[in-house]
């Protein structure tokens, strides 16, 4: 498994660059990860999504779906697609240091 240095910390990543261990993640890594998926500014709304995903993952042990981000996280789907264009579930999980979502929805 490859390792990379993010915000001064060396972490393990998979072939697509997703963090292998969500616990390695720090908030300082988010902007660096975001740039890798073409998001150059993280607004408060981006952070609402990232923090919800981290919290939900900690509580339930699984990466929240787009529906859960909408219903439990309060982020409308339309807005989620604007914040993380072309693949919001994957991109948000990537930036939040979670693995790649494996569900179909």
């Amino acid at each position: 498994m490859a390792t990379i240095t993010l915000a001064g910390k060396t972490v393990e990543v998979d072939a697509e660059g997703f963090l292998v261990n969500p616990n390695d993640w720090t908030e300082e890594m988010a902007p660096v990860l975001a740039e890798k998926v073409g998001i150059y500014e993280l607004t408060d709304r981006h952070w609402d999504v990232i923090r919800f995903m981290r919290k939900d993952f900690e509580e339930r042990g699984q990466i929240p779906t787009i529906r859960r981000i909408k219903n439990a996280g309060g982020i409308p789907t339309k807005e989620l697609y604007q914040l993380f264009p072309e693949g919001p579930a994957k991109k948000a999980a990537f930036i939040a240091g979670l693995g790649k979502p494996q569900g179909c929805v």
Partner: protein
Amino acid sequence: MDASNNGKLKKVSIVISKGSLEGVYPGLIMANGARMEGMEANLFFTFFGLEAIMKKRMDKIKVATVGNPAMHIPSLVGILPGMSAFATKMMLKEMDKLDIPPIPEFIEMVHDAGAHIYACKATVEMFHLSMDDFCEEVDGILNVGKFYELSAGGEIIFT
């Protein structure tokens, strides 16, 4: 092939032609999944598939318990009143656990995700329907020519 770009599919147009639960969900999951992967997605509802976008019908879509061997319910039992509703309820419950929404919420979600939703003109005329009969997510009523025009450069999937 136009639809692929570095081996990646860029666009899908999905036709939903059946009005049963098992006829509607696969197309919705595929269209939503396409958007989740950053692909362009069109949904085209035709024949009984139109029930899934009709205001008065979309929350009443049921799984077929008769003539469906994979349900493992003998057809004679399947015809009993309430069987279809019961099987549907059980199935929706399992889907909810996977965060697969009920049809009205799914239509809203897939539309919010940026998929375009269309009704088939021939069926609309045959059933004497109009835009008023459809949920607000429906972007328009299309004839087959226009459907092909919109689908240009992508893959067409019939369900």
